[in-house]
């Protein structure tokens, strides 16, 4: 059985230059990517954020800007620190919705993209519907999702999934198709099945594309979760908190919730980047595809 075409490739003198997995095996062992010092990642954005906050503080104080229009960053920070437990626990609820939506959206989009990559007929049938759903204002769908899916976490997950699926779908289609034609021909020449071509050729080719889309989708999923929480504000989450505090005109608390949302967004984005590095490193290893 043709269980590992990459190894099969190694057994022949693969004509594919540096792209050939067989050649990789003859290279010196690849070292783990050298991680930049943490400070190099954290300090620049932190400094930029501090400069921005100071500028806003000066603007609000010197310009006599009403606290009902823009709270002082110092007040926001004070609230954020004193009520950190609240923002953290509400943030966890939002993260749960966001990640669940991202998982559902990514899985659905990847499966669909896999089908579309193999079939132009499917592409013609499905892509217009995908675009139609994409351009539908998600806010208009939330009340319907609540009726269809119930009054718990499900409609919120669905909204987050709906917002995230499209970038993944488009990128995944491009990734699944971005295979070397000669390599594809070679797989065919050794009687590789469609599944084997997908598993060992198309899927690895799509990985960089999937990670690129995930970097976009992970923050989109947060937006989807927050928007859905506006509509189901009785169930908590940062979106609910923002909605309630906005109604109460406690803008310092609104911005404190936004600050927590920002931190979560940065954390999730960083996690995707880290995952991409680890995954890329694994793919670069000689045992890739084994």
């Amino acid at each position: 059985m043709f269980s590992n075409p990459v190894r099969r490739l190694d057994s022949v003198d693969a004509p594919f230059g540096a792209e050939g997995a067989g050649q990789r095996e003859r290279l010196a062992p690849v070292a783990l990517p050298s991680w930049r010092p943490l400070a190099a990642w954290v300090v620049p954005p932190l400094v930029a954020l501090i400069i921005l906050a100071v500028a806003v503080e000066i603007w609000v104080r010197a310009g006599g800007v009403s606290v009902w229009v823009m709270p002082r960053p110092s007040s926001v920070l004070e609230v954020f620190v004193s009520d950190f437990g609240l923002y953290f626990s509400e943030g966890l609820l939002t993260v749960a919705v966001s990640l669940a939506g991202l998982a559902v959206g990514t899985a659905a989009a990847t499966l669909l993209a896999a089908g579309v990559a193999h079939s132009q007929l499917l592409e013609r049938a499905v892509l217009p519907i995908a675009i139609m759903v994409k351009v539908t204002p998600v806010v208009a769908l939330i009340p319907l999702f609540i009726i269809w899916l119930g009054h718990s976490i499900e409609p919120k997950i669905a909204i987050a999934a709906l917002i995230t699926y499209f970038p993944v779908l488009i990128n995944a289609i491009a990734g699944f198709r971005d295979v070397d034609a000669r390599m594809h021909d070679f797989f065919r020449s050794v009687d590789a099945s469609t599944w084997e071509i997908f598993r060992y050729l198309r899927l690895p080719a799509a990985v960089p594309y999937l990670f690129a889309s995930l970097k976009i989708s992970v923050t989109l999923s947060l937006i989807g979760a927050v928007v859905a929480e506006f509509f189901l504000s009785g169930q908590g989450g940062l979106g609910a908190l923002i909605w309630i505090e906005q109604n109460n005109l406690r803008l310092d608390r609104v911005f404190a919730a936004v600050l927590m949302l920002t931190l979560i967004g940065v954390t999730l984005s960083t996690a995707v980047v880290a995952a991409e590095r680890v995954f890329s490193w694994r793919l670069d290893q000689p045992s890739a595809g084994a």
Partner: protein
Amino acid sequence: MFAVSRLSRPLVLIAMLIAASAAMLAAACGGDDADEILTMRYSAGFVPQANLPFVAVYVAEDRGYFADEGLEVDIQHAGFTGSHKSLILAGEIDITTLPASELLQTRANAGAPYVAVMLFGQRGDFGYAVLNKSGISSPADFAGRNVGFKGIVQSEFHAMLAAHSLTTDDMTMIDVGFNPVVLVEEQVDVYPVFLSNEPDTLTRNLNQEITVFEAADYGVPTLGVVYLVTEEFLEDETNREKLERFLRATARAFEFALDDPAAAIESTVKFLPEDPAPDLAHERFILDTELNNAVSDLTRANGVGWFTMQQFRALTDVLLEYGALDQDVDLEAALDRSALEAVHR
């Protein structure tokens, strides 16, 4: 000489008339503030529709009541944004609308220096709808049922349950968002409605037979929408003058709407979006409901828009009891009836 003297008499009279007219005109233009044209910036707290506090402005503008008062009013709408609540505090608008309970909450919880100057809803805007086929004939029957809420369980709902020896623990509370179809689909047995529009949607558009329970019917103090300004606005005497003119014109429009709601709707339609075409029956339902809730023994005795400290004290106490307020509200600062008193004097 004779000829000249015969001619000069009417000329002198004309000259005297012109001089007198000029003096009166000068007095009118510069000597008396009452005739000076003032401007007022008003924001309705929602989209254009026939809510009474909006209709009063539409009618006053359309029928020239503002002009009669020497007032030019810039009419804006907050839409769904809630921006009016911040804009008035930032001094970008002069007067807006807000439910009384929300005024008290933002004053108590955020220190917003809002001041109510006229009250439209002598009872609250919320009700609790059930399908007639559900067998629910009183809030006492809510026990064991699925009861919807829109984000926050209203204090008045807690109070209404308490009047029936119930709490929310006796039922299943479900966050339903803003779609009455959940009641039609029987996903909940009780659905909180905005009295002025959702009962019409349920009965006329969704063909449901419903009963709506209101907390006020069970002795719970509730209040509807007010006109509000800020403390800072009232510190200026010119602002007080224009507020008085604004309230006089809108109170007149309010009374006009009571006398002839159909004509009030005709005025209102001029301020509604043309596309999609307004549902006039729905707009009329909104206006009739709010007119009905805006009249009480108190307003009949004192004039439209009247309010008392006692009304707001009772509402504040309910909000405090059920945790909607972080602290008590200084009602002396939150209410100012002086302009309304001048209007009805």
